[in-house]
C-alpha cells in the first residue's frame, strides 16, 4: 500500500513518513503542490494525504487536478481545523484535522483501505 503524503513542512513530512511506515505503508512525500502532482502520476500512490495550505499550488487545486487525473484514488484532506463545511472536503474522500496526535489519521487511512477492500 503506497501513500503519497503532501505537505510544505519537511519536519511534518518526516514525522508522517516514519509514523506511517511504522504502520506498514510505503510512504512517498512531496513538499509542494507541483511535486505532489508529479509524484501522483509517477508513483501511482493508493492513497493521498493532502495539506490544504501550500505556498505554490494550494491543496484545493491539487485535489481537483488529482481527482481529474485519477478519480478513484482516495484523497484525505488534512485540515487545520474542522473543515467539514468546506467544499474541498466534500469532494475529497475524507478529512482529518491536523494534529500531533496521528491516531485519527491512521484510523481514517485504515477505514479507507477496508472500504476499498470490500
Amino acid at each position: 500500500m503506497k501513500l503519497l503524503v503532501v505537505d510544505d513542512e519537511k519536519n511534518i513530512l518526516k514525522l508522517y513518513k516514519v509514523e506511517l511506515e511504522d504502520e506498514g505503508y510505503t510512504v512517498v512525500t512531496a513538499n509542494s503542490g507541483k511535486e505532489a502532482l508529479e509524484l501522483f502520476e509517477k508513483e501511482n500512490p493508493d492513497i493521498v494525504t493532502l495539506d490544504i495550505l501550500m505556498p505554490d499550488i494550494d491543496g484545493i487545486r491539487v485535489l481537483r487536478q488529482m481527482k481529474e487525473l485519477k478519480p478513484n484514488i482516495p484523497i484525505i484532506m488534512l485540515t487545520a481545523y474542522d473543515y467539514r463545511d468546506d467544499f474541498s472536503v466534500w469532494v475529497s474522500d475524507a478529512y482529518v484535522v491536523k494534529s500531533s496526535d496521528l491516531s485519527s489519521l491512521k484510523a481514517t487511512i485504515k477505514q479507507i483501505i477496508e472500504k476499498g477492500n470490500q
Partner: protein
Amino acid sequence: MESEQIKELQKTLRIYELTKAILLVDDFDELLRIITVETTLLFNARGSIIRIVENNKLGVKASIGISNNVIESTSTIDFVDGLSEMAVMQDKTIIYNKTDDISTITDFNNALCTPLKTGSVSLGTFTVIDKLDEQGNAIPFDENDVKLFEGFTTIAAIVIKKLCLYEKALLKEKEANKEKLKAQELNIYLQSLINNTADAIITMDTDRVIKSWNYGAENTYGYSRDEAIGKSYLLMPDFLFDIERLYTERVKKGETIKNVETVHKTKNGSIIDVSITMAPIKDLYEKIIGISYISRDITIKKKTERELMKKNDMLNRLIFIGSAMRSTLDLERLIRMILTAVTTGDGFGFNRAMLFLLDEDKNILKGVMGVGPSGHEEAWRIWSTLSMENKNLNNLIEEIEKGPLRKDSFMDKLCCSIELPLSDNTVLALSVKNKKAYNVQDAHLHEYANFPLVQHLGSTSYAVIPLISQEKVIGVLWVDNLFSRRQITDNDIEYLSGFTSQIASAIENARLFERVYQAEKELENIFESISDMLYVTDTDYIIKSVNQAVVNKIGKPKKEIIGKKSFEIFSDTFVSCETRFKNFLKKSGEPLIEEVEDTFTDNTYLLSCSPILDSSGNILGNVHIVRDITELKKLKERADANERMAALGEIAAKVAHEIRNPLLSIGGFARRLERRLADEEKDYARIIVDEVQRLENILSDTLSFVKTTRLKFSKVNLNEMFDSIITLLEPVLQERQNEIVEEIPHDFIISINEERFREALINIITNANQFTTSGTIKIFAERRSIQIFDSLGDFKIRQEAVISISDTGCGIRREDIPRIFDPFFTTRTNGTGLGLAITKRVIEENGGRIEVQSTLGEGTTFKIYLNNEEE
C-alpha cells in the same frame, strides 16, 4: 278914453282866456302856466309866480318873466322876497313898492302877492311883478289891480284846488292800475307754476268733484284734463275710500292735511306712492267752497326708502349671521349655518345652495354640503319653519342643528358626490379662476355651463359666487331658485357677494382651527405614543405633565404622578441629573443631553433636558426626554465585540497557522519518543505531548472561530437535538450532579445548520454545567411574534423562536457580562476562552442572536433568538 276902453277890453279878454283855460285845461301844470301867462298879460306886468304849499313849504309851481336863477334860488326856500310868507301869514294881499324897502331883494320894483285860498284852506300864493306903463317903466299897482287880482286869484284857487284833487285821484287810479297789473302777473305766474310743477295740483269742490287738473296731475295719473274734470274719487284705490272720505271731512271743517303718504291708482291701474296735502279753498266770506289737493309721486323715493330698509335689514341679518358664524369653529356646523342663511326666506331666500371647497392638491372643487328641499311641498314646509325672525343666536343655531336642513338630504348627498376639475372650463371653475361671480340665466345658452351637472341639479338657471378670503379663492357657493323660479338678479348676487367674503373668512378660520386642532391632536398623540418617557417640570421640580411611557414605566396612574416633585417619582439617578441639568441650564439656557446608568434597574438612559422659555427668555420649566437605551447600548456593545473579534480572529488565524506546523512536529515526535522511552523520560515526553495537545486545541478553536463557512440549513427537530446532546453530555452532567430539565414544545422545528448549531448548544450547556454544582439546567423554548420593520420600511409581524438555557450556578460578575462573548475571555483556569465566542458566532451565522442575563450567586440565562419565519 278910447285907450281906456281898449285896456278894459283887453282885460276882459284876458279874464275870459283865463276862465276858459281854467275850465278847459285839466293838466295841472299847463293850467298853472296858462294862469301865469294870462295874468302877466292882464296886468301888463313883467312876470308872475305861483307857489303851492307842499310839505309846509311854498314851492314854485309855475312862473313867467322871472330869471331862472331867481326861481332856483327861491324854489325851495321860503318865499324869497318875503312877500308870499307875509301874504300867507297875514292872510291878505300885499302890495310891494321898492321904495317901501321892506326886503333886501330888489330884483323887481313893484309886486302884488295874494294867498291862494279856497275857503279857509291856504293852497299857496300868487305873485305878479312889475306892472309896466306903455313905455315899459314899472309903475305901482293900484287898488283896481288889487281887486282884479284878488278876484281872479279866487277863481284860480278854486280851479287849482279842483285840479289838485283830480291829480290826487289820478295818482290813486294809477296806483290801483299798477296793483291790478301786479295781481295779474302773479296770477299768470301761479298758473304757470301750477301747470308746470311736477306735483299734481287738483282742485275739487266739497263733494270731491274735480274742478281743475294740472299737467302734473296728468303726468302723475295718466288722465287728461278732460278725462279728470267732473269726476270724483278718481284716484283712490278701493281700499282707501274710507280714509280719503275722512280726510275730506276734516278739510271741509277747515283743517289742512299736510304731507300724508298714501297710495293712489293711476289710469293704467298701477299703484303709486304719493304724498298728499289737502287744504280748504275759502271764498271772500271765509266759507269753504272747495278743496285744493296737491299730490306728489313719491314712488321713487319710497322705492329708495324700501331699498334702504331692505339693505339695512340685510345688513342686520349679515351682522347676525356673521356673529353666528363667528360663534362656531366647527367647520361642518359653520357651513350648515351658512347654507341655512343663504336659503332661508328672510336670509337670502335662495331655494337651494351648495358649497364647494377648493382642493389645491388635486386641483378640484369638491362639494362639501348642499341644502335645499327635494320638492315643492318640502320647500314650503322648510321655509315656513326656518326663519331667522325673532330668534336669538342660540335658537338659530339649535334650529339649524335640528332643523330640516339635514346633513344627509338628497341635495347634500348629491353635492358631496360632485368633484369638478379646475382644468375644465365650467362656470364653477371659471368662478375660481377669475374670482368672479356668474349668473347663469339659461344654462342652454351659456357657453361654460356644465351640462351634466345642470341635468343632475335640474335647474338651468343658477348663480355661482366665489368665496374669497384674503385674495385667495377657497371655494364657491352655488345657488338657484328651482322652486320659486324667481330670476336671480344682479342685486341678489351683489348682496350675496357681500356675504361671501364673510363666509370665506369664517371657513378659513374654521379650517385653520381644524388644522390647528389636528396638529394639536397629532402632537398629543406623538407625546402619548412616543416610547421615550417624556415629562415636563416647572422650576420647582413639580411634574406638570407626563406621557403614557412614563405611566407605563412608573406603574402609577397619571393623576398620581402629576403635581408631585420629580424626585418623588423618578429614581435618584434621574433627579441628581436633573439638578445638575438645572444648574447647567441656568447658566447656558441650552438643552443638555447625557447618558446615565440607573444603578437600580441596570438600565442605561439617555436623558435630555430642554428649557421651556417664555417670550422674554425666562425659564418656566423643563422638558425631559428619557430614552431607555439599554437595548441600543447592548447592540452597540455587540457590534463592538464583533469588531474586536474580527480583529482578534485575523491575528489569531495568522498566529495559528504559523505555529500549527511546528507544534505538530513537536507533538508528533514527542509521541514517538514517548512510545520508545520508559520511566521518567517517558513521563517527560508525555508532558510535551500534553502541552502540545493543549496548544493545538487552542489553535483549533481559534481557527474554527475565525474561519468563514458556508452553511447548510435544514429543518431540525429541536427536541431530538437536545435529546442527543443531553445523552452525549450525560456523563459530565452527572459528574457535577446537575439535573437537566427540558421544556420544549412538541415538534419544535427550527431551520438551522445542524452540526454547527449543535456545537453551539453543547458549548452553552457545557459552560452552564461547569459553573453549576448540584443545580438545575433548564432548557426552555417558545415561539413568539415580534414587530419589525422590513427593508422597505414596512411594518411586519414575524415569528421568532426563543431558546433559553438557564442554570442555577454561580452567575457572572456584572462587570464580566459585556465581555462574556469575547474571544479568549474565560474565568476558568483550563478554558480556551473561545467557547462562547464561537457559540455566538455560530448563532449569528444561523441568523439569530444570543443574550445573557446573570445574577451573581443565582445563576445565568442564555437566550437564543432565531428567526422562525417559514420560507
